[in-house]
């Protein structure tokens, strides 16, 4: 008998891939949770089509879920998959370009029919040869047949049987990676508590998958990934959208205010509205508006009335909110706008990630209209940056735009849960003295005005979108207008006092400083790490505070011979830096494919830059 092949790895990337109705997202999420509970560090990336049910069996209809887990700190979902689980030929074709050399492909051999080859637009009946995957380890598993077999004595319809195929794949993969099934069993029992039949179906198929791995032991490579060294604490898995929602809610509680969200559903930001609509237990007022404009306008109304007001959206919706955003700038009301960026322009690539709304966020309004711009960089730090966005908005009476993206919003990672008491304080600028109150009188240091809300006796006043003087009265005086424009800009600039200096990861001075911002952190950081292992003198300055920029930015840039700005657009942050921090040569590495960077392409680029 041949020995089972056991492969010990530091980190493994698995990609689950099937029709968008095959349940791949759930399968991937359950496997990720299981890995995290086992003590691996993980990072995940769902990748799905914008149609809810794109044509079955086609490449366009493929829904994927990628997870990387490992024994050390994992910052990305990985570039290339070591293991691919493919539910049909289209899934093999769709993922042929993202396999790690020598990887393993588990596939449903029952799906290898002429009909499915045709649907996947394959020219032959051998997708592996056609897609240049001959050198990979392929495991044919008749998943459909075995699922039917496992359920043959149960009285259930064919549709339900086929729907549980994903559990077979999950069971098998758990065996391959030596993961226990108890967490998944518990999940199934809880989720389908209302139907004993569905629980029975799923559990049986799950175990059938696991047992199949056992039986075929000699044919299947088995992987062991030891638990990671992780800081002590209580952990949970969290995706960027949920972290954003909870960060905003935590900020409202910290500031002793109610949270109001006015939003309109839009991919990939909708989860934020949904998460907050489900938090009436913590006093959230959620308002699903008739459009994006009403989303922000109801939030502005709620802000005027004294709430921590937020609105969430993505690129096209952000464009619609522009005029109202200008109102919040001139009225100087606290407001947080979350833009979960996606591929643009126009409807663009709704389910894909991109960083191409930066210039829209900074400049996309009429008039001189500065506001604070912050970008989160990992799924879990969306919590922190959402919290800080609210703190700045409330303490400086200014709108703040928080930029995340589809990759952060949907991606998840383990998060060490903070204690509420350890979060920074938030002190809204509530007006105190009705005698001296003037709507646009300012704190000398911060230039922030005071917040007096309807219902407070003695503070009755008017605000609006017209230019005004310090008392809030409309003023068309030319000198006053210029003064107010400059004050609003300076108020945003002075937020620099609230933000930390930029820290450099890796070498503190040297040949190359890699400059990134927002959601690309994981890939950029792992590329820099790899370069350093190979001896390069390289550092990373990854920006979360975009406007204003950290105070030490120019000083840090000056410590390196070459600067390269990496971003998922054609160079928007680079242009901004050329304007704000002049005197440097900014090289660029850009990608606009709706996909995250791969660490490999970054490394290749940095090496080339070193040689130049």
């Amino acid at each position, binding site marked *: 008998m041949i020995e089972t092949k056991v492969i010990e790895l530091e980190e493994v990337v698995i990609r689950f891939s099937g029709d968008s109705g095959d349940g791949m997202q759930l399968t991937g999420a359950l496997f990720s949770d299981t890995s995290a509970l086992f003590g691996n560090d993980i990072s995940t990336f769902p990748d799905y089509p914008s149609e809810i049910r794109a044509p079955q069996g086609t490449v366009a209809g493929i829904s994927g879920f990628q997870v990387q887990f490992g024994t050390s700190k994992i910052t990305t979902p990985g570039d290339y998959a070591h293991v691919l689980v493919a539910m049909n030929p289209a899934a093999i074709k769709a993922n042929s370009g993202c396999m790690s050399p020598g990887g393993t492909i588990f596939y449903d051999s029952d799906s290898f029919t002429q009909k499915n080859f045709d649907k996947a637009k394959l020219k032959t009946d051998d997708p592996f040869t056609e897609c240049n995957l001959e050198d990979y380890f392929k495991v044919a598993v008749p998943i459909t047949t075995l699922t039917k077999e496992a359920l043959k004595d149960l009285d259930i319809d064919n549709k339900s049987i086929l729907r549980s195929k994903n559990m077979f794949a999950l069971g098998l993969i758990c065996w391959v990676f030596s993961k226990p099934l108890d967490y998944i069993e518990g999940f199934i029992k809880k989720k389908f508590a209302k139907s004993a039949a569905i629980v029975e179906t799923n559990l049986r198929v799950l175990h059938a998958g696991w047992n199949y791995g056992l039986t075929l032991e000699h044919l299947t490579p088995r992987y062991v990934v030891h638990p990671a060294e992780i800081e002590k604490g209580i952990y*949970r898995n969290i995706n960027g959208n949920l972290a954003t929602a909870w960060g905003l809610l935590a900020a409202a509680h910290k500031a002793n205010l109610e949270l109001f969200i006015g939003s309109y559903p839009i991919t990939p930001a909708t989860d934020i509205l949904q998460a907050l609509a489900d938090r*009436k237990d913590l006093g959230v007022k959620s*308002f699903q508006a008739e459009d994006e404009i009403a989303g922000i306008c109801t939030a502005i*109304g709620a802000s005027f*009335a004294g709430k921590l007001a937020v609105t969430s959206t993505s690129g096209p919706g952000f464009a619609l909110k522009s005029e109202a955003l200008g109102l919040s700038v001139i009225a100087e009301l606290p407001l947080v706008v979350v833009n979960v960026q996606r591929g643009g322009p126009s409807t663009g690539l709704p389910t894909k990630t991109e960083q191409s709304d930066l210039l829209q966020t900074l400049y996309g309004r009429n008039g001189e209209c500065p506001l604070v711009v912050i970008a989160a960089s990992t799924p879990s730090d969306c919590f922190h940056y959402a919290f800080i966005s609210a703190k700045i908005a409330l303490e400086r009476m200014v709108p703040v735009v928080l930029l995340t993206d589809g990759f952060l919003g949907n991606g998840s990672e383990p998060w060490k849960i903070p204690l509420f008491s350890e979060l920074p304080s938030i002190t809204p600028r509530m007006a105190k003295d009705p005698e001296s109150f003037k709507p646009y009188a300012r704190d000398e240091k911060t230039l922030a005005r005071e917040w007096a809300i309807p219902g407070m006796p003695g503070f009755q006043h008017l605000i609006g979108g017209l230019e005004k003087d310090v008392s809030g009265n409309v003023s068309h005086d030319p000198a006053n207008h210029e003064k107010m424009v400059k004050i609003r800009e300076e108020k945003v600039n002075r937020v620099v006092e609230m933000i930390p200096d930029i820290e450099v990861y890796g070498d503190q001075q040297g040949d190359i400083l890699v400059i990134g911002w927002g959601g690309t952190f994981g890939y950029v950081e792992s590329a820099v790490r790899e370069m350093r292992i190979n001896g390069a003198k390289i550092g990373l300055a990854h920006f979360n505070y975009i406007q204003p920029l950290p105070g030490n930015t120019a000083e840090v840039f000056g410590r390196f011979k070459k600067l390269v700005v990496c971003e998922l657009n054609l160079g928007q942050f680079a242009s901004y830096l050329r304007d704000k921090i002049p005197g440097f040569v900014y090289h660029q590495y850009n990608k606009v494919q709706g996909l995250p960077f791969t660490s490999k392409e970054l490394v290749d680029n940095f090496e080339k830059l070193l040689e130049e």
Partner: protein
Amino acid sequence: MTEILEYTIKDFKSENEVRWCPGCGDHAVLNAVQKAMASMGIKQEDFVVISGIGCSSRFPYYMSTYGFHTIHGRAAAVASGVKCANPKLCVWEITGDGDALAIGGNHFIHVVRRNIDINLILFNNKIYGLTKGQYSPTSDRGAITKTSPQGTIENPFIPGQLVLGAGGSFFARAVDNNIKHSQEVFELAAKHEGTSVVEVLQNCVIFNDGIHAEISDPKMREERQIFLKHGEPMIFGTLKDKGLVFDKGLLKVVKIGENGITRDDILVHDVTEPNGYVHQQLIGMKLPEYPVAMGVIRAVKAPVYDQMMEKQIAEVKSKAKIKSIDELLRSGNTWVVD
């Protein structure tokens, strides 16, 4: 509330000079709103006046209450946010036919559909005044304006019918030159729980002078307007000798004393009838066949959005397992790393 609030109209006037054109209908509406507010027994600091863009939307500058002059078309959305944030406030929206029914049409129908408790005063002068004379969505077909030199080729909105179509719970109509009646209508609107839409037929003295003159002429008021009151027969005329009856499913003007018609035959106004059939016909009445309906046409009881929002939160809170941020963050699947 034990405190007795004795306000006069002066308590609601701001120090700002009123800058509407002399003779503009807005002056009278401002007076009527201020009088209504003074008499309502609501603390002055609890009033909020929200406006959009347009001549009438300068309104908050002339009030001494909390006010917010927002952007074109969006007053309904901002007002919705204010009211939902704090349902204790008495929120008024001041808007015009262009602001509410053109650029803000979407927000208008949705605030009405949701039945958020705000008082929406719609100044209808059938023209864009602030931009100096272009046709509006309520301009009559054929209206000759700067942007329709050959006359408009589109039908106007009838504001009351839009309100009905959106499932509105309150609609009333008043004329700018009848301050006493306007004030009564505003008070009734403010007392109604839900979105109260009051259409004010307002005269733009510069760009559309006399557009409502046939209706609003004080000398012909009793003949050309019918002042509707809940529970009272629909009678009008200087001699109180004319009324409305139903004939073959349609309203019809009759003369009391002619053809055997007595006072008892006249329809009695019922603002609370949820089926808007009669309300719709009252809203649609036009000169010369009919008098134009004034006063509260519709005021039905319906669930109020901002109240329901608070109720849902209270209900969820009373049964909640999660009562703090710490509990929230630790809910669901967590694990400990030692």
